[in-house]
């Protein structure tokens, strides 16, 4: 069992919630870019979530979750002191930082929760990091202070102009590239469509662009093939070959189709969340 040490919402709208979990084995090895899989209880799904931070001394791992589906909503009903049945990791390959001097990290919405630890990890290693954090509106902005402290330049954009610069994050990136900013690499994390747009925008500039993929996953250890995607014409497994891939080689249309396979089941499950009572399930 893995105890929830603390929990806090990361914005006023409470669209993203941070959980610190007691998981010493995972904490010892976790590196930026890797993920964990949690399971609420015996009946729960295996849910993959990127590691936001880890503290090997305290033995804790931080995850940031957007409560949108049944499992994440159930997680959100749990409180410090409650336990998750399973919390396994670290899984996937860590972010490659070798040979990088200057990088732009671009996140969209809750993707910033994943982009931030990568940006900070790079910054901690002396890599110059510009970060563009895009949000729909002011009320869902997360981690502003942390991102500002953990990068060299932080640009916040909101689609509706209610905070930071008005417009999409990808528009800001385009502006930076047009203004002559040179990056060894651009790293994007966010909704699939956003990452696809970033990759399309950077292609003409010939800047290597890495996308952090989050496909449907089941075991997370390279056994089931549910997370497969086509990269450069080859079938890859996000859980063991990724989750980060060269965004210019990724077959984006295929990913968008695959990601929606259980949309109907997810919708129905989320609607039936009335079964949940304070994080504890009742079974007759």
């Amino acid at each position: 069992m893995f105890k929830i040490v603390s929990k806090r919402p990361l914005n006023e709208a409470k669209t993203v919630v941070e959980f610190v979990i007691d998981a010493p084995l995972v904490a010892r090895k976790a590196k930026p870019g890797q993920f964990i899989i949690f399971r609420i209880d015996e009946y729960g799904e295996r849910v993959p979530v990127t590691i936001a931070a880890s503290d090997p001394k305290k033995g804790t791992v931080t995850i940031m979750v957007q409560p949108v589906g049944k499992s994440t909503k159930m997680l959100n009903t749990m409180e410090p002191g409650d336990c998750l049945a399973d919390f396994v990791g670290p899984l996937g390959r860590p972010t490659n930082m070798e040979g990088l001097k200057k990088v732009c990290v671009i996140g969209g919405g809750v993707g910033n929760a994943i982009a931030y630890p990568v940006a900070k990890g790079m910054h901690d290693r002396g890599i110059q990091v510009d970060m563009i954090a895009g949000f729909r509106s002011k009320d869902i902005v997360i981690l502003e202070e942390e991102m500002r402290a953990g990068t060299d330049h932080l640009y916040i954009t909101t689609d509706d102009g209610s905070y930071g610069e008005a417009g999409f994050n990808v528009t800001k990136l385009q502006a930076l590239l047009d203004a002559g900013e040179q990056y060894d690499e651009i790293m994007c994390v966010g909704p699939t469509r956003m990452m696809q747009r970033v990759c399309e925008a950077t292609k003409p500039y010939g800047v290597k662009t890495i996308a952090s993929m989050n496909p449907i996953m089941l075991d997370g250890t390279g056994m089931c093939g549910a997370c497969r995607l086509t990269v450069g014409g080859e079938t890859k497994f996000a859980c063991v070959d990724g989750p980060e891939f060269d965004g210019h080689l990724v077959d984006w249309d295929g990913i968008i189709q695959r990601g929606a396979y259980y949309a109907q089941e997810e919708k129905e499950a989320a609607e039936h969340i009335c079964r949940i009572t304070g994080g504890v399930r009742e079974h007759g």
Partner: protein
Amino acid sequence: MANMRMDKNPMPEQEPLVRNKNFDEVALGYTAEMAIDEAKRCLNCRRPACVEGCPVNVHIPQFIAKVAEGDFDGAYGVITSTNSLPAICGRVCPQETQCEGRCVRGIKGESVGIGRLERFVADYHMTDGHKDGPPKLPEPNGHKIAVVGSGPAGLTCAGDLARKGYDVTVFEAFHKAGGVLVYGIPEFRLPKAIVAKEIAKLEYFGVKIVTDAVIGRAESVDELFEQGFEAVFIGSGAGLPQFLRIPGENLLGVFSANEILTRTNLMKAYLPEYDTPIRLGRRVAIVGGGNVAMDAARCAKRLGAEEVYVIYRRSMEELPARKEEVEHAQAEEIIFKLLNNPVEIVGDETGHVTGIKVIKMELGEPDASGRRRPVEVPGSEYVIDVDAVIVAIGTSPNPLILSTTPGLEATKKGGIVADEATGATSRAGVFAGGDAVTGAATVIKAMGAGKVAAAGIDQYIMGK
């Protein structure tokens, strides 16, 4: 006096058209009377060929003699002196190519039902056994051994070592121990309660099981040595599912058998109280002819598919699945499309599977495997309308351990190189066995390898 009837006592089973709608066990097991009657068919040969056919060398005539006498506890003692997991073997071993395939009674009639008797004895022991009290625990010898993977290879290795007094810890990546026995083989063929009981027995002998532990990520093999483990057995199994490399393979509704079996068996997607979703549709095609293909086909039927096809490029004679599984599948109205090879998976404009295009095959000259090579019949392509395709054509070894353990030699196919006689790898103190070495094989072969490695580890530690 031996029972000279030609046929085996038939196995009581659920009716095919009832069982193909539920996940309860298909085969119901012998009664004591049936078991004694069947045991009397054994001639107790002076040179028992059956034992040579068994990868873990169960003393078959001896245990069967005990069954014939009605001494079921005694029979259990004989079996478990060489086999740690009899309730599992009795259910899933391909007896027809092993023990029963060598049985002299099989020359003129049917072989003795060795697998059925083994199952009977193990099940009897679980419910009515232990008359002499719990078995004696071995004297601890103070040596710590790590086992990576809790499938048949790992559990067998752990069980054998624990019985010798070793302090054994098994690391499992999933949330539940058992490996392929829990995520792969369906409930209707191997009830998970049986697997749990066999594992509990190992725990009784002192085996510790740590779940949610991905060795190679959370801890490396080298770190296990640093923690004081004196030897490490790697039984991490086969990993990456192979796909067909034909057009349409990434359409919605194309799955690996591993995915469907894991959703069904480990995550219990067929039970409404479990959250993991599964959706296959009305018509499902399975590509492949092994046990995994049979399991996937029979799961698909039970999940509500009306038409389930098994597409296999050779003929029934070459089909590698256990005979009983094929017969069960046929009785459950699984449709076999033999001598058919997929060339394309076809879909609609939304990206969903609508069919699988296959080409007819005929058998030509024998190939390297000794089986007649299937050859395409030109112009014979046609489309079978289906809503989902499950690919069950095998797996490649999981690269996680090899890529994180310096000094481990790999085979061309990505397996770990291990000595067949001892399980020893190219690194001192590291042993390996099962699918991680051979690529996808059978439960009993993995158990055999686990057993060999347990002896190899014992020799290694005692010789230090």
